Structures are given as C-alpha cells and as structure tokens.
C-alpha cells in the first residue's frame, strides 16, 4: 500500500508534464515539426519498436518480433559500448594495478597520463576517422578512450589506498608477493575500481551516441541524427527516450553487479 502511494507520488510530476505538453500540442501552441505531442511520440516509439516488415517466409516468430529498428539500434549501441568498454577497461586495469603498486612505474607513466587525461574523447574524433576509417572501429576507439581514464585513475587510487593494516596482517600470515597482490590488494581496491567502472561506463555511453553520429549507419545516435534530416521530431524524441532507457538499464546492471561484488563492504546496505 505504502509502495503504491510512493509510486503514485513519484509519477505525479512526469504525468503533469506530459498532460501540459499534450494539451499545449493539441491547442496548436507549437507546430508538430518543432514539438510533437507526447501521444504522437509514444505512437512513433511503438512503431519504431515493432517489426517494419511482415513476418517473412521461414523466419521464426521471435526473430521477427525482434527485427524492429529500435531493438536493432539499441543492440548495436550496446554492443559498441560493451566492446569499447572492455578494450578501454581491459587496458586500464592492468596498467592501473602496476602503476598503483610500483612507484617507479607510476612516475614513468604519470606525466603521459596527466597530459592525455584532460583531452575529452570527443576531441579524438578526427583522429579516429583518420586512423580507423568508418564503421565500428573508430567508435570502439573513442569509447575505449572514454572508459580508459576513469578506470585507470580509480585503479591507481584503489591500490594506493589499501589500508596498511591488511598488508601487515597478510604478511604476518606469511603471504608471498603474488598472493598479497591477488588476494589482498586487489580485493581491497575493488570499491575504488568499481567506482571507476561505473564512471567509465557512463562516459562510454555518452561517447557511443556521439560516435554513432559520425561513422556508422545504425545505432541510437545515428537514428536520431537521421530523423533530424527528415525533420521527424517525434522519432528524434522517441530515440532520445530509448537512449535514456538503455542508459538506465546499463546503470542498473552495473549497480547490481557492484552490490554483488561489494556485498562484504561496510558502506553498502542492501
């Protein structure tokens, strides 16, 4: 009962905005090209979700159901985010671990990192096209850069901030250097690392939308830019909503993963 109440309470503001928006659109306050009514956006979103073609001969029902443009675009974007993130984080994690653990390696790489880190991934777009041409590779490159630095910086900080008491306890138990690293330093650093992962995924998601506006012909970023060319503002907004939903889904998934991996952590209540 209480849950329902708070749900209704939370829904109040969005519903109000939608109602006012719908009323204004119907009253003809602005043209449908500039700002379509929410009902029109919803209809478009539904059409965008459903398969465009009738079920073809020999196509499975599920395959047909999933053949809609929206799902294809969402899948393409998600695929790029994950691939780019895995590349970026996959490089940042080992580098961050050694930089955090070894001062000499840290001092060797740190100037380079500090110079490159403030460059926004978007600024790499021209270079990305020059180096990788069109298609997925420049997207992967840009997303990887977006994910790389947050994961790197947090991994370094995580390793450096391991409480000395754990190291002493471990040495007292007789661990060797490798075990100390894998069983003590690495888990002790995970809260930091996962915070970096979360920021990195967020950046990756911003970068994927931008990168799709330049070099590919599917994905949510591409779709809203394409819709602009035809002045389909309803489709633009439907695409934006989809981007929001996908972002929310990614963040929820990462936060679930976080909660699971950090179930031992003091700061977390679940």
């Amino acid at each position, binding site marked *: 009962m209480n849950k329902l109440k708070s749900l209704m309470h939370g829904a109040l503001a969005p519903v109000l905005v939608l109602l006012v928006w719908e009323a204004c659109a119907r009253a003809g306050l602005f043209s449908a090209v500039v700002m379509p009514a929410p009902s029109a956006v919803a209809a478009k979103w539904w059409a965008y979700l459903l398969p465009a073609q009738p079920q073809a001969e020999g196509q499975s029902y599920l395959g047909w159901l999933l053949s809609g443009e929206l799902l294809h675009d969402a899948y393409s974007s998600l695929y790029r985010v994950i691939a780019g993130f895995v590349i970026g984080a996959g490089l940042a994690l080992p580098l961050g671990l050694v930089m955090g653990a070894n001062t000499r390696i840290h001092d060797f790489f740190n100037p380079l990192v500090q110079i490159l880190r403030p460059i926004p991934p978007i600024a790499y777009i021209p270079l990305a096209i020059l180096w990788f041409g069109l298609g997925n590779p420049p997207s992967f490159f840009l997303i990887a850069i977006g994910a790389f630095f947050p994961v790197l910086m947090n991994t370094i900080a995580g390793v450096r901030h391991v409480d000395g008491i754990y190291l*002493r306890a471990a*040495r007292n*138990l*007789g661990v060797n250097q490798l*075990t100390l690293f894998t069983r003590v330093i690495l888990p002790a650093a995970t809260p930091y690392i996962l915070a970096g992962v979360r920021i990195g995924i967020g950046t990756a998601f911003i970068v994927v939308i931008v990168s799709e506006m330049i070099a590919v012909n599917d994905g949510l970023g591409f779709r809203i830019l394409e819709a602009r060319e035809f002045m389909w503002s309803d489709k633009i907004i439907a695409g934006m909503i989809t981007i929001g939903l996908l972002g929310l889904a990614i963040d929820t998934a990462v936060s679930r993963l976080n909660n699971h991996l950090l179930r*031992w952590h*003091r700061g977390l209540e679940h």
Partner: protein
Amino acid sequence: MSQILINNVQKVFTTPGGPVVAMKDIQLTIQPGEFVCLLGPSGCGKSTLLNAVAGFQPPSAGEITIEGKKILSPGPDRGMVFQEYALFPWMTVAQNIAFGLEVQKKSRSDIAQTVNQLLDLLHLKDFRDRYPKDLSGGMRQRVAIARVLALDSPIMLMDEPFGALDALTRRNLQDELLRIWEKLGKTILFVTHSIEESIYLADRIVVMTYRPGTVKRDQIVDMPRPRDPSSAAFNALKRELGALVMEEQQRHANAEMKLAAVD
C-alpha cells in the same frame, strides 16, 4: 622450543622534531608457554616492542631471536592479533580463518577440518559465512584469534586485542583466551594498558617506563587461575602496579606539559 630472547633492544624513530627513542635497553627472555603481559601507559613503546618481535619494524640496535634465530621479517610462526582486528572484510569468517592455511598450501580437507575445529573452539559456528562487517567487535576479535590459531604458530602476539570491547565481552574473551592457552600451550606476548587485565591473564607482567621505554618492573604473578579480581592478593598487586604505572603516566603528562610550554 620457542624461547624469545630480546637482547638489549633499542628503537629510535626519526621524526621532524628530532629522534624519538621509543625503547631502550630492553632485555627480556620469554620462556616457551609463558603468558607475558607488556603493561604501560600510552606511548611507552609497547607496540614498538611487539612490532619488533613480529618483524614489522626491526629494532635500531640489539636483536631479537626465537630459538636462536634472529628475526628479520614477519612470519606465520608468530601470529599477531591486532587491536583493529585487521580481518579481511572481503572474506567470510571461514575464509578469513582459512586464508593462512591456503597460503601454506595445505590440502583442502586439512583446511576444512582445521577451520571447523576453530569455529567450534571459538563458538563461531553460526557465523561461518558472515562477513566481518556483520559481526560485533567481540565476534571479530574471536575470528582474528581463530585466524592466528589456524597457523598453529607456537607464539601469539596480541596488541591490546580487547581494548575496544565492553567489559563483559572483554572478560568473556579473556577467559576464552586462557582456556585456549592452557589447552594449546602457546607462548603469548600480550600488550595492554589495563592493570587488571594484565593481572587477570599473565604469568608475568613487564611494566614499561615512558620514553624511553625501558623495563621498569618484571613481575611474576604467582596466583592460581581462575583469578578473582576481588581477592586481597589481586588487589594488593593491582595497587602496587597501579602506583608504578601512575608514575609513568605522570612523567608522560609532565613531558606533554613541557612540550606545550615550548610551543
């Protein structure tokens, strides 16, 4: 057997304000199976001495040997129980206890058996799969003790292990520690600044002076266990040691006053 020989040990810390002599001329022989308390006010070098025995901070002069072998680094032959528990928060109770054994590459079945015995011994059975964050302070310290017992080291070093616990839990754990010590015959070097705790536990109490930390009194406690803190003998000793510790406490306070005056 594992006799600890602390031979003319000194430790000097270099600080921005000049060298600090944390301990000096410490000469102690601790017999196998002995329960020794290091007693003294805060800052008198108890942890410094314990850390030197543990191998975390080597002394600046003198040497510490165990069975004639000089201590150069920490090792599982000297299990340490820290005041801050120092349990690994990402491991469950059972995993914390098992960790030292895994490091020693014991077989799975050996590990499981030892862990189960220790869970039993320290009444931790119902908590085996909990994480440290879900345990009370007393429970955490039980796990820390179990973790060290798992190593089966002949020597246990304990740095104010019960300092953060309430009186009841504290007494409870003191009794458990005595029970375990009597059962397993460990050599225990136990740091405390509680006079009562030291008399309740120790075969022998080493009272330390404040800066530089030296041995002020090496006191044998010749009372049968379990000791009754309300008995006359207990209280007589308590008064006697209390006066000694008070003197050092006073020197501590005076030293701080002087420092404040210089500032």
